[in-house]
């Protein structure tokens, strides 16, 4: 088969894999942001237990490779009574993994807001929750969007690791096609790379543009 025939044959399958990748990325991404915001706020909590638990969570998930976390969730948890299927394990682990990095991003964002903003808010009689909701978090959101988008790009790429516990995402489809065809796999992997590029590169450009637009000046 020549290049064009091979491409024509593989692309439909690859697109299905792309669909799985996108699905994994979207669900994990949304969960990761929610976990990250809670974790980031928890890291700064005045209550020792909450602060400690969040710190341990972040350290463990940032200090071990994603693949190992996946293996632990998929192979070790059943011994403790929690059995997840490939999809649940993949999405859950990815969400908590990225959530740890997002916690750090959120925490850095909160710490970047000048102390004076808190003082102005408190002087108006705002309660801590109101201060967070109306004054601190809106500014935090603007500051963290570029590193957050960066982390989400990493999340999209990490979905490929879930293929190693059996999910048929873009890269697994590519791998199976390459094995099945028995011929030069460079074309197939080439298309795999192109598809990842098509999702990730626009995100990267988006983060640069939005950083310029949302820049806050005090």
């Amino acid at each position, binding site marked *: 088969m020549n290049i064009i025939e091979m491409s024509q044959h593989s692309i439909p399958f690859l697109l299905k894999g792309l669909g799985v990748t996108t699905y994994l990325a979207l669900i994990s991404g949304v969960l990761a942001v929610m976990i990250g915001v809670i974790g980031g706020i928890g890291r700064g909590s005045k209550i020792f237990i909450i602060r400690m638990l969040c710190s341990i969570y972040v350290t463990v998930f940032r200090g071990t490779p994603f693949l190992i976390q996946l293996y632990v969730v998929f192979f070790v948890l059943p011994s403790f009574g929690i059995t997840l299927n490939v999809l649940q394990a993949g999405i859950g682990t990815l969400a908590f993994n990225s959530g740890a990095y997002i916690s750090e991003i959120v925490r850095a964002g909160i710490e970047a807001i000048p102390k004076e903003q808190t003082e102005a808010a408190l002087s108006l009689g705002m309660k801590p929750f109101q201060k967070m909701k109306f004054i601190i978090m809106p500014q935090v959101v603007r500051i963290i969007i570029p590193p957050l988008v960066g982390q989400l790009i990493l999340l999209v790429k990490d*979905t490929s690791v879930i293929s190693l516990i059996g999910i048929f995402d873009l890269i697994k489809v590519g791998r199976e096609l390459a094995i099945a065809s028995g011929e030069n796999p460079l074309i197939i992997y080439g298309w795999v790379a192109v598809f990842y*590029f098509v999702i990730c590169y626009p995100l990267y450009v988006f983060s640069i543009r939005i950083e310029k637009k949302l820049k806050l000046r005090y």
Partner: protein
Amino acid sequence: MIVKQYLPVFRQAFLNTLGISAVSLIFAFIVGLIGGLCKISKNKIVHGIASVYVNAIRSTPLLAQLYLVFFGFPYIGIKFSPFLTGVIALTLNSGAYITEIVRSGIEAVPKGQTEASLSLGMNYYTMMRRIILPQAFVIIIPPLVGQSVVLIKDTCLLSIIAYTELTRAAEIVVANSFAPTEGYLTSALLYLSICFVLMSFSRYLEKRQKKV
């Protein structure tokens, strides 16, 4: 306990992980340094090549890059050992990220430094070597340590190409002993110990920099 039985396997894998990480990091740093200098170059071709390299790597997963090198290269007639394949893939991958780190480091050096150097009559090479790069180096150390942590964790994917690092060791132990808990958790703990040391070091560096 199972772990005691397989301790030599884990020990060897631990050393392998550190070994391949160290080698890859050195090469990645060289690549990143060259790449960073290219990216700040005014020469459009040089800048363009560096940009394409960085964008291609950063927009594709390491796993895909690994497959390309390990399964794709044999078809062009080149076959590398798992170790070499790992080093190449990790070097090219981290090299792109280090390119960006070096670039931001250089750009973070105040423009006044360049102006003062040029006013003293220095040429580009001298200015870079004596004034700009030394200052950039101090700035980039924390993110560089961060990237090292990433690279060490990335070595886990080399288990796919049969290089016996910590993850593959865990797989071997689990396959032989049917004790996934001990196998994977030991591996996790060993990774955690390496990364924890590096992450603490990075935090210490950041605190020191903040004081300045």
